[in-house]
């Protein structure tokens, strides 16, 4: 392969972010906007994970019998992974709140069009 896994993951993350921003800005349906926002979050998470990935490395779990120096040189960097765990949960909860607001707004306006509901 010409490009390695890490670089390809970074490109995928970038594509997800761009698709998400496009959906959140240009699509008129509120549910689609929310789906787009979820994709932006996913893209950022993938970016962080790709940052901690080590080509040819091992999972960052220290098993008995591993040499300490060998582990330190080959393990992936776990700090971004810990951050992503938090970020996934925050993204899901924010999305739940947004969908709740959308349900209330649908009862009021009878439509899901952003141009009708959000445009003053």
């Amino acid at each position, binding site marked *: *392969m010409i490009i390695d*896994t890490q670089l*390809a*993951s970074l*490109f*995928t993350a970038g*594509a*997800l972010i761009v*698709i*998400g921003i496009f*959906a959140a800005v240009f*699509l008129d*349906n509120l*549910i*689609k906007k*929310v*789906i*787009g926002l*979820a*994709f932006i979050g*996913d893209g950022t*998470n*993938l970016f962080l*994970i*790709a940052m*901690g*990935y*080590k080509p040819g*490395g*091992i*999972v*960052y779990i220290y098993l008995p019998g591993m040499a300490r120096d060998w582990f330190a040189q080959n393990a*992936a960097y776990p700090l971004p*992974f810990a951050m*992503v*765990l938090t970020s*996934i*949960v925050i993204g*899901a909860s924010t*999305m*739940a709140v947004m*969908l709740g607001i*959308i*349900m209330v707004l*649908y009862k009021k306006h009878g*439509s*899901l*069009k952003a141009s009708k509901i959000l445009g003053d």
Partner: protein
Amino acid sequence: MIEYILMIIIVLGSILALMQRDLLKAAILTGIPGASLAFLYQYLLAPDVALTQAIVGSAIVPVFIALAVYKTRRVED
């Protein structure tokens, strides 16, 4: 090799989900990039994140969106 296929599925799946006119289909299709991301995380040496993403991305998020669609309107106007 399988990583590259997963990446293509992620990008195509997300575009496909946004192109649906039926919002319930869009909600279900959101699960495809979510689940593929979970597999990709496994290949990128992050098994614990993959577990969380598998639950949140392929089950919780689509179900939330599907519930919201069920309570509002199914076809985009």
